[in-house]
């Protein structure tokens, strides 16, 4: 039995979140029902946010929870609900395709794991160094100023921030969301506007009115004409 004081709780929570993330990712592949897939994806991405917190990237972890889990996945769940007709909730995959994907996935995983274990420097356990909160330097870097210690050792003492990529991504997100709203709008039949309704209603009514006016006018005209005569 391991003595309780010897346990590294950081590692314990890492393995907890890692098992949750990997298990739910595999469950996304294995599940047939698209609603269950969405649920497993939420759990997997949430556990990944926990891994980010454990790695000291608290701002990225918070953004993962807010944007990914709170925004993107809610969008996906809405898509699932909008298209959840009975035949599409679970579309079966052919068993041959499953076997083929399993073989290809295993080969890809073998290559990735081999490369992950190939660098001895990465395999060494962490030195337990102290870091500082990354939210403030990250926010300053997004505004174009680097205040972290990496900028001190850079040639010239100055490293450029991320102002230009930040602006590009902002405008990109705006344009993309406007475009998505335009693409996904409901294409209902165009209802004619009130003035068009009036225009289309006009001919019979105006013809009748003109006819009446014409009759009266002609009668009056005839009267006048008669009076003039």
């Amino acid at each position, binding site marked *: 039995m391991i003595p309780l004081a010897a346990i590294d709780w950081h590692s314990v929570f890492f393995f907890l979140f890692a098992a949750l993330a990997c298990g739910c990712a595999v469950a996304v592949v294995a599940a047939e029902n698209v609603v269950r897939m969405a649920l497993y994806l939420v759990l997997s991405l949430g556990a990944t946010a926990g891994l980010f917190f454990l790695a000291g*990237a608290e701002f990225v972890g918070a953004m993962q929870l807010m*944007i990914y889990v709170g925004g993107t996945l809610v969008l996906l769940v809405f898509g699932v609900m909008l298209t959840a007709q009975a035949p599409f909730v679970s579309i079966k995959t052919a068993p041959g395709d499953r076997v083929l994907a399993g073989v290809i996935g295993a080969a890809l995983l073998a290559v990735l794991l081999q490369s992950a274990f190939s660098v001895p420097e990465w395999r060494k356990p962490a030195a337990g160094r102290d870091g500082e909160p990354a939210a403030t330097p990250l926010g300053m870097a997004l505004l174009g100023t680097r205040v972290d210690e990496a900028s001190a050792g850079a040639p010239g003492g100055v490293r450029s921030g991320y102002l230009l990529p930040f602006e590009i991504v902002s405008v990109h997100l705006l344009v993309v*969301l406007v475009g998505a709203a335009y693409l996904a709008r409901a294409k209902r039949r165009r209802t004619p506007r009130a003035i068009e309704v009036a225009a289309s209603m006009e001919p019979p009514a105006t013809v009748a009115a003109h006819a009446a006016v014409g009759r009266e006018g002609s009668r009056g005209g005839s009267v006048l004409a008669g009076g003039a005569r």
Partner: protein
Amino acid sequence: MQPSLSPLVASLLTEPVGVTHYLVVGAILFTAGVACMAVKRNALGVLMGIELVLNGANVNFVAFASPYLQAEGGKSLGLDGQAIALFVILLAAAEAAVALAITLNFYNNHATVDVDRADDLKG
């Protein structure tokens, strides 16, 4: 606890984690995403696979960026890795919005979300 498993489990639970642990998690997420993209016939399942792939890449970026996970004398990517991870999250949100709009359009026109039926351009 089994006596044969005990040393391995003890070493896993008492040693601090390194970059490789995160890389293994990222590799599994990436592989699951690729398999999901290949296997699923529902267009939304393919989108979920894309999210998993981007997330696996993000795990690697954050792992290399973290100063806590580096060994003695190792140099971390620093702030750059976290900034790239943020950009990846934002672009994934944009990509999901557009892909979902296209999927809904396809569903309105074809009354299905099966990607195998999207063969209008097939010669």
